[in-house]
């Protein structure tokens, strides 16, 4: 058994200081590139497309000089979910699912359960998509300071302000949500520690104790939510105490710079993602 440390496995929302090219990009560039690549990943159904996207994602991780081991540790808490999804897909997809460029072949058949080459494809493709998305999201937050991210989101939403979209407020909401992720993990850690100290059984690894876990979750989630609300209230007070007033008339201390590298990265990811989308039905397997 290990120490109770949740934060170690939360890689999303955590800025990791660095000086790589990706760290230095304009947040707007990163956000757009993230959006483009996310679209490409979401619509990729073939092995080939996913292999390419996985390679590109890994390439970006290497370029950002973020440790892959660290990113993989972020995958760990998601493993049960991925596994559950895979099992469901194997059990229920069966003949109803039309695989990408394959004649459906039933590989296995037990009663009403049909395991086809299609369901296997679904499992592999969705798992790799999940990994790609997790890596990409982690990468975005690992290489971008939260304030930069806020400025980026706000700048990108600004044109829609004329339509009545509260750009500043929305970006603030996004920022706070991201900022609260590691805080919530820390909080969950504290509550679990307090409970373990008072004799509550600590979830044993490698065993599926659904009922016990669910019961534990209830005593964990309630105080967690209560604390989140309390923190939110404190945050409001702190913002008011510092005379915070929404978006109108607000100027920025940080002026974003969109230079040639940004244009290049923007163009490349746009073209690449567009190509992946257009060609998505052309890959051989």
């Amino acid at each position: 058994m290990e120490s109770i440390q949740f934060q170690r496995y939360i890689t999303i929302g955590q800025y990791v200081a660095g000086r790589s090219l990706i760290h230095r990009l304009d947040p707007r560039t990163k956000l757009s590139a993230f959006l483009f690549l996310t679209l490409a990943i979401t619509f990729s159904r073939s092995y080939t497309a996913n292999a390419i996207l996985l390679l590109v994602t890994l390439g970006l991780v290497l370029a950002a000089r973020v440790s892959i081991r660290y990113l993989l540790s972020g995958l760990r808490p998601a493993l049960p979910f991925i596994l559950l999804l895979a099992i469901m897909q194997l059990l229920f997809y069966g003949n109803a699912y039309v695989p990408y460029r394959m004649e459906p072949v039933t590989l296995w058949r037990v009663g009403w359960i049909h395991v086809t080459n299609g369901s296997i494809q679904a499992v592999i493709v969705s798992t790799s998509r999940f990994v790609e998305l997790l890596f990409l999201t982690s990468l975005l937050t690992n290489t971008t300071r939260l304030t930069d991210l806020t400025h980026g989101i706000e700048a990108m939403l600004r044109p829609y302000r004329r339509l009545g979209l509260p750009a500043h407020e929305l970006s603030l909401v996004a920022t706070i949500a991201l900022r609260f992720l590691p805080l919530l993990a820390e909080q969950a850690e504290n509550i679990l520690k307090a409970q373990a100290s008072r004799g509550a059984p600590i979830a044993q690894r490698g065993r599926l104790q659904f009922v016990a876990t669910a019961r534990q979750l209830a005593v964990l989630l309630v105080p967690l939510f209560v604390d989140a609300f309390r923190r939110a209230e404190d945050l409001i007070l702190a913002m008011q105490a510092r005379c915070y007033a929404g978006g109108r008339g607000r100027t920025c201390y940080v002026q974003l710079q969109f230079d040639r590298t940004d244009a290049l990265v923007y163009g490349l990811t746009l073209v690449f993602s567009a190509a992946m989308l257009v060609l998505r039905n052309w890959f051989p397997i």
Partner: protein
Amino acid sequence: MSQQPMIRVSELHFAYLRGTPMEVTALRGICLEVRRGERVGIIGRAGSGKSTLVQHFNGLLRPDSTGQVLVAGSDLGDPATDFRRIHQQIGLVFQTPEQQLFERLVGDDIAFGPKQLGIERPERRERVRWAMEMVGLDFDAFKDRLTLSLSGGEMRKVAVAGVLALRPEVLVLDESTSGLDPSSRREMLRRLDRLHHEENTTLVLVSSSMEEIAEHVDRVYVLENGSVAMHGSVREVFAHPEQVRKLGLDVPQVTAIAHELALVGLTDGSVPLSVPEGAELLLAALGLHSAQPGALGTGDAR
């Protein structure tokens, strides 16, 4: 009394978020011993590793490969150790009370521990009553109060009671009396002293109040940057105010005054730890009253 130490920590190293880019080293080779029935203080400036250290005492944090933590002889690095038993033996109260209460009603929250231990209802009720009495909460008035509606000080008391209800052999209080008003603080410490005398409960006090440490602890460890910078009896450590101040702490005011007086030759270098001791020393120095010889030893810290 058994000679085996209650808690023995040797060469303990620990880093938070190990293996990630945010790794922070918190403990660097701590060695420490808490004997059965002893009262031990742990002090040090903020961020010196006090809380990290005490969370190793009941296995919430596990030592990095090199260090070892033994509780009554069982090795906490060994996965086969019965950690529920350790959690019952070593009662740990954390800093933030509002994060330790998770049941809706005060009574249920305090009963959480005994319930986990499988204790039957009537006995559980007795334990809750006893624990609430120990911290100075009226059983009938508070047992059905909502935990969320309590004040900060009451939450602290409930948090301590929740751990006391486990009847631990060692009680570790991580700044658990800070935030209480002076009289409830004094009251709680008095009750803890009683617990120590009557039931031979071992006490580990993490505190930023030097007065509290001086009056309620026998031995003290001073942490600095994840290592033990000073240790010895309270009198030995507080006999060196300059050294203690260098570590970002201070000695109790009465001790500081006696030290100043000793520098000008008015007193003999005794180290009073409480106001009555200080008064006695002063009276003796003024020739109004003679101090009992040897009542206040001179200290020598390592």
